């Protein structure tokens, strides 16, 4: 291991999770966590940043409990958070299909799917709570797909052999988010939640070691304001946009998490990036983002490439005998439904062999011809029609007549701020939920489990754990003249002034694109020691150029979208370097992290439990080397084994 880039700190542990039988831990913690009586909750203020599945459900639930909630989002409406774009579904261990599902099986699948890099206690809680989430959403009127008898329909997703995924056509995320958003609006009307849209958090306020507020910029007027409270909850999503091209919304960024990290919140497993196997391939240099096709398509679509490289024929002209349905061939028991990391790497491998299809050879076929013949076009249309339309809109090709072309793309980040079982970060009073934390998915996220985690954290976990912290409140009232508040305000204004004053010759986007290319090339689907070292050097040079040559037009006192992006890209540079350092130090392959030096003879990822069965929690090194704290992972219920889907 190279200590050139980091230093080793003390080991850490999650001291909040109860010990004892795993299926009793959550109820034990709920009982042991202190409560705040309803009359006192009114005296306590909580700031929630973000309004996705985690943020909206948390803000609504905390409001219902009687806390005074201030909620922020950078979009024009809380309903537009990127959770809205999730297509496929949400898992729950309801066993409505009588196919052998249970809380334990969902727990087992998730720990295994995460390549044994998640905490057992957290994952078990997620599986337990999943059952309640479906009940909650149905009660809110979420129009899940139904059977003719009126019962809820299910389908299956990658990494599972049971049908436990609840869905609302191809727009599950939208419907779940609207449910949470409506619950949030109800609380806004009731006066328990105060909503601030088009506001971006640019700094965290810490007083006497505790998170006490945020500094935000009003994205319309440019006004910088301070909001103080007894606790702060970050629900600000993932950081996949560090790659520039990703399936994330354009606004997704790391700024809130990164500001917290720079104030002492540990950043865990930053290099775990989920690459989603079914995205529409890149079409040109102008491209601003990648579009994902739901994983549910692999229930009926078959993935293949020509058996021989350089086959230029149209798909229909390639006879059955000359096609390689490689997922079904290599992984007969899971077939096309292998987990995302496996499917992504398999696609990369066949393209690297020169067997890819479409422009540039970076694509594989996702073929519905068999499904259309078996089920009829109408049935396929009913199941996937909106996805097919979307594909045609973007590519100009009709997927009913020729197979879709897909290629892996950056999708979800499993790393994030380190939290304990209570979802509290290493800064007291700072809680982190949903994709912004690291805790539940391990090194890989199975399909339909992100929506589950967002809502689990927001509806059920945080509202039952934050009270233990707030029971010590209300904390001493603060004024804006407090020294720590003033220094946070000063940090924001000086960073904005700096960005506006450089007045160089390159646009923010040109830097971001270049950073993204470096990250995809060297810290993407496959990483090597040499590549990561090279990436770190390239990132450092590019960052230096950014701070001397970026051009940000306009002023800070207006709606200035270039300025917004500049601040975010500045943080992406620092994060990118940490991602590469994390990837470099982890000399094993697991889940969304494939080190070329660590693979089996048949090119499967090779984990190294002996040396790397830990969470890598990074402490900000005050501008010099980051400090690595290890949290050992213990597996009492699902013994780590070779993760096989064959």
């Amino acid at each position, binding site marked *: 291991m190279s200590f050139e880039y980091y230093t080793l700190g003390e080991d850490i542990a999650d001291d909040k999770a109860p010990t004892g039988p795993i299926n009793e831990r959550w109820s034990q913690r709920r009982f042991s966590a202190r409560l705040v009586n309803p009359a006192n909750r009114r005296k306590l203020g909580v700031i929630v940043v973000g309004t996705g599945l985690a943020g909206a459900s948390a803000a609504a639930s905390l409001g219902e409990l009687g806390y005074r909630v201030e909620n922020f989002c950078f979009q024009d409406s809380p309903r537009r958070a990127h959770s809205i774009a999730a297509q496929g579904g949400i898992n729950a261990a309801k066993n409505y299909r009588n196919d052998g599902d249970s809380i334990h099986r969902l727990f087992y699948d998730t720990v295994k799917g995460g390549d044994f890099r998640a905490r057992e206690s957290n994952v078990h809680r997620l599986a337990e709570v999943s059952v309640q989430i479906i009940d909650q959403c149905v009660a809110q009127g979420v129009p*899940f797909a139904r059977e003719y008898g009126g019962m809820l329909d299910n389908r299956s997703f990658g990494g599972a052999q049971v049908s436990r995924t609840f869905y609302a056509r191809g727009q599950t995320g939208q419907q779940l988010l609207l449910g949470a958003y409506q619950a949030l609006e109800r609380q806004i009307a009731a006066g328990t939640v105060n909503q601030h849209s088009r506001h971006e958090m640019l700094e965290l306020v810490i007083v006497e070691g505790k998170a006490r507020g945020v500094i935000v910029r009003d994205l319309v007027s440019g006004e910088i304001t301070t909001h103080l409270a007894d606790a702060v909850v970050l629900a600000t999503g993932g950081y996949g946009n560090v790659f520039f091209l990703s399936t994330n919304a354009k606004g997704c960024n790391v700024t809130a998490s990164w500001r917290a990290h720079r104030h002492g919140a540990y950043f865990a497993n930053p290099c775990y990036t989920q690459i989603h196997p079914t995205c529409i391939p890149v079409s040109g240099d102008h491209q601003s983002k990648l579009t994902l096709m739901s994983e549910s398509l692999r229930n009926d679509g078959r993935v293949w490439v020509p058996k021989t490289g350089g086959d230029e024929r149209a798909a229909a002209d390639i006879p059955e005998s000359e096609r390689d349905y490689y997922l079904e061939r290599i992984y007969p028991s899971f077939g096309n439904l292998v987990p995302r990391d496996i499917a992504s790497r398999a696609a990369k491998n066949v393209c690297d062999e020169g067997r890819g299809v479409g422009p540039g050879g970076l694509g594989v076929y996702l073929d519905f011809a068999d499904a259309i013949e078996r089920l009829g076009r109408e049935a396929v249309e009913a199941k996937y029609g909106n996805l097919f339309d979307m594909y045609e809109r973007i590519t100009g090709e009709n997927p009913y007549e020729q197979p879709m072309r897909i290629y892996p793309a950056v999708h979800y980040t499993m790393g994030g701020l380190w939290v304990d079982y209570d979802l509290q970060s290493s800064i007291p009073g700072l809680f982190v939920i949903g994709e912004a934390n690291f805790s539940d998915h391990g090194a890989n996220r199975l399909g339909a489990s992100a929506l589950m985690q967002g809502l689990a954290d927001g509806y059920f976990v945080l509202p039952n754990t934050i009270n233990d912290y707030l029971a010590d409140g209300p904390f001493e009232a603060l004024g804006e003249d407090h020294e720590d508040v003033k220094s946070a305000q000063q940090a924001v204004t000086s960073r904005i002034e700096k960005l506006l004053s450089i007045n160089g010759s390159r646009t923010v986007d040109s830097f971001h694109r270049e950073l993204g290319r470096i990250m995809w090339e060297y810290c993407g689907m496959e990483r090597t020691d040499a590549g990561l070292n090279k990436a770190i050097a390239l990132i450092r040079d590019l960052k230096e150029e950014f701070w001397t040559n970026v051009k940000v037009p306009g002023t800070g006192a207006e709606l200035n979208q270039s300025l917004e992006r500049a601040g975010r890209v500045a943080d992406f540079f620092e994060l990118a370097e940490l991602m590469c350092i994390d990837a470099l130090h982890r000399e094993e392959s697991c889940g969304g992290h494939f080190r070329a030096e660590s693979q089996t003879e048949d090119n499967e990822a090779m984990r190294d439990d002996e040396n790397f069965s830990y969470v890598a929690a990074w402490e900000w090194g005050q501008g010099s080397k980051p400090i690595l704290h290890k949290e050992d992972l213990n597996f009492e219920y699902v013994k780590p084994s070779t993760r096989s889907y064959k």
Partner: protein
Amino acid sequence: MKLKLRIWRQADADTDGAMVSYILDDVSPDMSFLEMLDVLNEKLTGEGEDPVAFDHDCREGICGACSLVIDGQPHGPNAATTTCQLHMRHYADGDTIDIEPWRAKAFPVIKDLVVDREAFDKIIAAGGYISAPTGTAPDAHAQLVPKADADAAFAAAACIGCGACVAACPNGSGMLFMASKVAHLGLVPQGQPERHTRVIGMVQEHDEAGFGGCTNTGECAVACPKEIGLDVIGQLNRDFRKAVSGRR
């Protein structure tokens, strides 16, 4: 291809705006409409001009952030398409394209092509929900929902809140948006207890926010990127009449 763009530029809510022309070369047919604007903005920034402000986020046709009246039509010429899903292959070399913000009294312009759609959130806050506090729900199968009802509720719930309906309506009415929510929640059994208070609250808020009334012009449904039909407005009107007359 080469395009002439005529774009509404307006510094802020208090300043008068005007159409300004730009020439853009090298537009690829594979670009989305917003990517074409990205290219324009890169060019403007390089030339020291203020880039054009516009709202966008997911670029997958689902968040509802993107807007733009393109050649007089909200989200442009294609049916059932958001601006982010409109691609330049639908245009020809030498075309002139007019790009304007949503125009409605209830949606004041903030800057250039960006408008304030907060009035929609207020309509939802006035009753567009089912009161189901966290943790109070019965088992999801405790109440069966006929498939046809669930499908119809889903079709109405597909509204992305973009506001194209308002921009298309000669009266600046938000009726299609509001009605899609009323229909969605009114079609499921969970939504029945608040059905009447919901519709009254939402209609009141809609009118107070400065949206106009519905005169069955039907432009809203034509402009809707999610193909929500006028039938939801029929449902809204029936529910409203029942609610104000106290009939059940």
